[in-house]
């Protein structure tokens, strides 16, 4: 199953895990499986219309899915999906 890497700010909504394996043949299906397993993640990843929030980027390996086929991007078992939210700390 593709592996989804969970960033620090969202781990509290994913049972404290830094990586979760999620079944699916597309990035969208894997994220669906992830948010079914951890429902608290859903509101952090999707807006009220069910679209990915614009301060959360999803990468398949090192490529932003916005430049692939978005959530329809095919995902293989060997792929890593990264959730990269915007963070602002600096002080």
């Amino acid at each position: 199953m593709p592996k989804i890497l969970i960033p620090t700010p969202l781990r509290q909504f994913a049972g404290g895990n830094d990586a979760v394996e999620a079944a699916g043949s597309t990035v969208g299906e894997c994220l669906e499986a992830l948010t079914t397993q951890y429902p608290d993640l859903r509101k952090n990843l999707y807006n009220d219309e069910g679209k990915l929030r614009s301060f959360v980027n999803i990468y398949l390996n090192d490529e932003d899915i916005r430049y692939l086929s978005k959530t329809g991007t095919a995902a293989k078992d060997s792929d890593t999906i990264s959730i990269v939210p915007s963070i602002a700390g600096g002080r």
Partner: protein
Amino acid sequence: MPATAVPVALSNEEVLRYSRHLILPEVGMDGQLKLKSAKVLCIGTGGLGAPIGMYLAAAGIGTIGLVDFDIVDRTNLQRQIIHGTKDIGKKKLDSAAETIADINPNVNVVKYEVALSSENAMQIMKGYDVVVDGTDNFPTRYLVNDACVLLGIPNVYGSIFRFEGQSSVFATTDGPCYRCLYPEPPPPGLVPSCAEGGVLGILPGMIGVMQATEVVKLILGKGDTLVGRLVLYDALNMRFREMRLRKSPDCPICGPDRSIHQLIDYHQFCGIPQQPAQAEPAAAKNGEIEPADVKSLLDAMHNFILIDVREPHEYQICNIGAKLIPLGELPKRLNELDPQAEYVMHCKSGMRSGKACDLMRQNGFTNVRNMKGGILAWADKVDPRVPKY
């Protein structure tokens, strides 16, 4: 890349000081003179700004502008190594300028004691060759980005959270900008700040040093910079990853059909009402109670329940004997609590307990008050033996 005229020569003292640079073919005399004639603006002299300012000074950047309006306090010292214990209470600008002068008296430091804003950003940033973003909030990050794009100045970006950091270079002529990466900020409150979420003290050192490295490379025109790449660093697992970053065709400020032509209201853009120094949520103002009055209730054995909504590791640092229910667990644990009972909620400074009060009131609890200023105020006003953190 610097537009400024290259100075004629280095002094003998400078030749000796920069000797390890001068014998590097990638730097050499030409490169060192480029560094000396360069003007770099550091926004913030905190966690990221500290190593950035110190290394850029040591490297021989000729002019370093510093923007900060904060005062050094003890909680800064775990990571802001440009400031020391002797500097507590001093302006960060003065403290940073003194450290820089000690490291390298050849550096010309320009101090800007202001909060960067849409009104002053263009004026301050104009004329600098590179801007380094060491700020700590979304409005200023979008402001720095937009001003850099509008002025055509590269923006060396770094940001940190707990054990994780990001770095990239934005707003170069052909490269992406911060808005290409993140078109919009998260709603306020969803991502905790370092003050709320904590940060590994060494982390800004790592990210700040990466930013300083990119500044030097941009000025020298050497190597492969982070333009078009986002580096992610995870200190806890000591792992670096790299993501590809593209210039977004839909970018509202650097795209072909851009809709932003001048600086905007960044607090509004980030959904933050502009009320500086007003840290408490609106609802908290109703139903607040002073720490001294909570103490009186406790002393009088008044029948009420005192709840601490901080995290268990914070409770370990200090507590005042309250029942511990972390804010994140509160929604699931409301059934443990009697809606008819009287409650006083507290946290570290009153923010989280304000949210807890809102949540309880929404769930039918009628007698809920927030202890004003949290355990920090308790330490100040009731019991100085309680350590502040």
